[in-house]
């Protein structure tokens, strides 16, 4: 039998969701284990083997010197590195707190300086080249499964190139932006989540980050303005998950 690929999961600063979501694959995780052997995944195993990985998944933002060191280690020792989840691809919520790190630390911990060497939170893609970026807060688990299977079979995984809106149409969800006037970011957000929030009758909050390309944030902005939302509200909403773009 062919040797299994070595798979690592590295967690920087985050909510744990993108690592946890791997465990939520349930039986599919065992299917993946036909192709992969997990050699580093500290939420799930006490083993930590090896210093070479075929595929490394990195979740979270770089928010400390420790994160940065770990990220560089991961990059140096892996063939194929995936920035997994919106923290890693766009910075997600923690990167949207717009104050210099010194001031943030002061607000939280008082005047003690920065003994733990915190950095301003930034996505993984700001520091290293990644082979694939899979956004989502958290990402859709079917999607990561497919990406890992593709890699194992030697196929370069494809990036989604359509907005959440399209998934509403496919699922025949009523448009909450037009019908209810909710501030939905579906038209400008990376699809791939099956528009799950619109299924609940709620507006997309943009957790998969902005879709680059031909989408039109300016017209989304105009629509929200015409619905009565003020500038500050709209801009903060736009920037909540993505101050950085990969």
């Amino acid at each position, binding site marked *: 039998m062919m040797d299994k690929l070595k798979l690592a999961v590295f967690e920087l600063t985050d*909510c*744990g969701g993108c690592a946890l979501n791997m465990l939520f694959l*349930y039986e599919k995780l065992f299917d993946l284990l036909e192709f992969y052997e997990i050699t580093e995944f500290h939420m799930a*195993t006490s083993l930590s083997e090896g210093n070479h990985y075929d595929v490394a998944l990195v979740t979270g933002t770089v928010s400390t010197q420790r994160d940065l060191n770990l990220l560089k280690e991961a990059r140096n020792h892996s063939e194929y590195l995936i920035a997994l989840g919106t923290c890693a691809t766009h910075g*997600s919520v*923690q990167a949207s707190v717009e104050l210099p790190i010194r001031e943030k630390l002061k607000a939280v911990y008082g005047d003690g300086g920065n003994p733990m060497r*915190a950095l301003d939170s930034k996505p993984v893609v700001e520091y290293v080249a990644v082979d694939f970026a899979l956004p989502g807060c958290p990402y859709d688990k079917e999607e990561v499964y497919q990406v890992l299977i593709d890699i194992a079979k030697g196929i370069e995984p494809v990036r989604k190139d359509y907005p959440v809106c399209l998934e509403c149409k496919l699922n025949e969800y009523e448009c909450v932006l037009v019908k209810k006037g909710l501030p939905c970011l579906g038209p400008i957000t990376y699809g791939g989540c099956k528009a*799950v*929030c619109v299924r*609940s009758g709620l507006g997309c909050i943009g957790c998969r980050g902005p879709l680059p390309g031909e989408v039109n944030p300016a017209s989304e902005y105009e629509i929200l303005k015409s619905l009565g939302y003020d500038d500050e509200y709209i801009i903060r909403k736009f920037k909540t998950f993505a101050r950085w773009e990969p």
Partner: protein
Amino acid sequence: MIIEMREFTRVEGNGKAEIVIEDGEVKDVRLQIIEGPRFFELLTLGRHYYDVPDLEARICAICYLSHSVASVLGIERAFGVEVPEEITLLRELGLIGEFLESHALHLYLLVAPDVFGYPDAIRMATKHGELVKEGLALKAFGNRIRVMIGGREIHGINVKPGGFGRYPTVEELEEIERESEALLRLAKRSVRLFAQSDPYGAQAKHFVATDGYLWGEKLISDEEGAFHYTERIEEHSLVYSFAKQSRYKGEAFFVGALPRLLLKSEMLTPTARRLFEEHREKLETGYVSYNNLAQAIELVYSLEKANEIAKTLLDRGIEGENVPVEPREGEGIGYVEAPRGVLIHHYRIDASGKIAYSNIITPTALNHAMIEASLLEEARKLYGEADERAMIGRLEETVRAFDPCISCSVHLVKL
């Protein structure tokens, strides 16, 4: 001399510990939360209240719904909004889903490998596949409830001030009723498994919980009288940790499944209560390691309670009506029992509905001093007796018994 433990495994988030040895004795232990700060309170300052619960959910994936619900409760209290019983019951159902998902993850995938001597559940599955499958079944059921109430397995946005985006259907509630009954057998088996282990860690002296089983208006402790956290709990920063440390009247205290059982056993469902009585003597010693057993008993509670709530809702029928929410200037605190203990969301909101002050204290931050005390006690017991690797292994288990969620402990702000 300092013995450095490597980063903890099979816990959520990034943390480690140092054991300080002086003159051949364990002098001190420092729990270092090295996960970076995420500044959640700053993130929510100035934001419209309606968007806040969805953002606070991102504090922690394992218990996102506890954060959404605590946030919603804080906001509703600030505005003086009262919701009908239907909405309360559905929120409770969501919290139960989270207990099932989180406790099953902790007991079967993180702790059980210690019991059987494996580095992880995946490798344990070769010999104990049945057990791993049972754990996954409980966890998956908990997640199905989270999808139903919360909107997604992780970070759903369905829980809103005044109600929900979408309400469950009759078919979904019938599924809960059926499945909760079918899975009860597995939960009872987990109680037998986790009742066997020997105690380790410290014996906690103080316990704190919310005044209702799953959430509350105030906190209770082993002393007289319900109280607000500001009356008895204080936080301070440490130079070696991104998490602050909290103390109850100056002393370490314990929040979590064991404190809940010890303070609120009369609120348990019948079988859970019987199991509590059966193991009461053990549990009352207060050893932190019995938190695992307590979580197993709570699996039983959760299934029985889910069944009861589904039945009640099916009998009455679901209205699916939200309560209108009008912003006004106010202050409110949401107290919720997250799977790993008391969670506090405290807000002041201005007349336009924007957050003017926010303070969040999470279970792992509340337990920080207790985790250190337990490590110290265990290290003193083992140093010089066991070899270093065995000692460190046991210390990791001691940390694990708290079911710490490290990401969630790192973002406190006082303004």
